[in-house]
């Protein structure tokens, strides 16, 4: 196999099987959700997000990306839950008609911790996993080559369609498309952008279909892959362990075992 197809992962964490990393991220998010509270998710973030991220050498990027992505949600959450929390008794601040309550702040912080867990776990996943490798691994495990194709193609189509869209938006803006301004104008401005992108892509569907069929795409059954990510018995065991952590956490939460966590 040609040298340039060999993958050389930059760290031990990167080298883990994609499915392992996927399950790890999902379980972290779900357990963070189940535990609730403030301290629980934060501990989880430290152990399951920050630690692996530093092993993988992506901690800096993770912090930047995760913060950036969760910023709009965080701001919205803070504003809404601090000021509009019904039934809040202890008033902390009064800004005209809106009131900040301690209960509101408490709730907002909890939600924030939860968002941090989810965002961090998922960011860690996609920073350390190439989409094509995940899809290859799934295909090796029995997912149909057609589903694998759809997944791969979707990831590649997003930047391609984006280029087309940005060209169109630039052209439209030169002709006066409004992205600011009144609500009605904004809504009206959607169609001239959507239409060319959508129609242009759909027109291509026919040709792409013919080309794919000419490349033997219709043959049913599996394919012999050139390469796929490695796996190990240890990782298999770890995956089962991780998956079982979810019901375990749910039971623990239901029986109040975690009530000591603020």
């Amino acid at each position, binding site marked *: 196999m040609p040298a340039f197809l060999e993958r050389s992962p930059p760290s031990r964490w990167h080298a883990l099987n994609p499915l392992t990393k996927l399950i790890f991220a999902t379980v972290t998010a779900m357990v963070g959700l189940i535990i609730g509270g403030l301290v629980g998710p934060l501990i989880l973030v430290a152990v399951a997000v920050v630690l692996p991220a530093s092993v993988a050498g992506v901690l800096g990027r993770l912090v930047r990306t995760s913060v950036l992505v969760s910023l709009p949600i965080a701001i919205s959450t803070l504003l809404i839950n601090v000021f509009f929390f019904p039934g809040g008794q202890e008033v902390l601040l009064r800004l005209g008609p809106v009131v900040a309550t301690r209960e509101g702040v408490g709730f907002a912080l909890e939600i924030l911790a939860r968002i941090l867990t989810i*965002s961090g776990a998922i960011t860690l996943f996609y920073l350390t996993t190439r989409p094509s490798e995940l899809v290859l691994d799934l295909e090796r495990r029995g997912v149909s080559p057609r589903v694998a194709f759809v997944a791969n193609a979707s990831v590649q189509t997003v930047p391609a369609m984006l280029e087309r869209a940005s060209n169109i938006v630039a052209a439209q803006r030169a002709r006066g498309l409004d992205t600011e301004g009144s609500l009605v104008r904004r809504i009206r401005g959607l169609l001239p952008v959507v239409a060319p992108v959508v129609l242009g892509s759909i027109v291509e569907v026919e040709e792409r279909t013919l080309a794919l069929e000419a490349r033997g795409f219709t043959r049913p059954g599996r394919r012999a892959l050139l390469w796929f990510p490695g796996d190990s018995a240890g990782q298999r065991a770890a995956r089962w362990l991780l998956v079982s952590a979810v019901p375990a956490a749910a039971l623990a939460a239901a029986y109040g075992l975690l009530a000591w966590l603020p």
Partner: protein
Amino acid sequence: MSQRSVRLLLGVVAFLVTTGVGVLFGRFDAAADPESGINLPGADSFALILAIAAVVGFVVYAGVEYAQTRSFASISSQFDTRTIVLMPIAIALNIILGQAVAAALRIPIYLDSIGTILVGALAGPIPGALTGLLANLLWTYVVPPPFHSDISGAFAIVAAAIGLLAGIFGRLGWLRPRPGRSTGQLAAGGFIAVGLILVLAYLAYLGYTAFGEFELAPSGDEGLFLVLGYLALALVVGTIIGLLALLFVRRDLSAAYVVVAGVATGIVAALISAPISANVFGGVTGAGTDFLVAAFRQAGADVQAAALGQGFISDPIDKVTTFFVVYLVLNAMGLRAKARFPQGDRLVESGPRGRVAS
């Protein structure tokens, strides 16, 4: 018993078991609202339970098939090449438009289902559902910033339900153009469409009032609420005007069908997504819809009710708009392009103009 019967049976059993478990442990403590007689939080949870049960049933079916035949042939064979080629384009559309609307255009609709509904209409319910599911999962787990979204993965079930419904409506022929109809038919259609929208507005109003104290007497903290009310009203009115234009200018009866389909899909989507939004994200998703949630909270609603109220306003309007856009796209596609898709023949006019000879 044949392998297929075994699979189907196990899938159905899993569905029923999950539903039962959900009903037992679900949030059904809220009582029926005395005014409207509807137990909204209950119906809400139940819709989510049904959706999850459907997914579980499907997963069990697929799992059993894999155990039997080491492949998923009965599912993947439903998809022909053309559908497979369309799906990534549809998924990319969902992600790009949805992200653009959420991040750049601060309007309280999502527009992240255009691709899902398009695939549903052209290829069928299962491809539509799969498109929605994959789109949301990829959006969260795989697509990097700036097109990444942390929250979409949790709503994958909602997207799947939307795709399923779109496929069903497509199969029923609701998205077929019906131009040049008689005034009587158009009037009936217009009546139904406008009536539906007004019923919807009334339900939203009920949602407002059932969960809080809404007094029209302006006191300080009601101002925001009033503004939002007018905003929602403006959106509703705008949609009505656009659809009436389609009805009477082009004399196309399908405008009514589009409205009904959009409203129905929107209500289902709101029902399934509200519990997810409330329980996972506290009702706040960082999109333009958040100020609606804020308004409901301001009026005294708890998280669940606020999320549901916001959903009932945003989702139907979003889905009506999306179905509309998809309808326009389908019209623009032309006979040949549509006819080759699995459900294409349901999307062309019936009668001499639409006959697709093989």
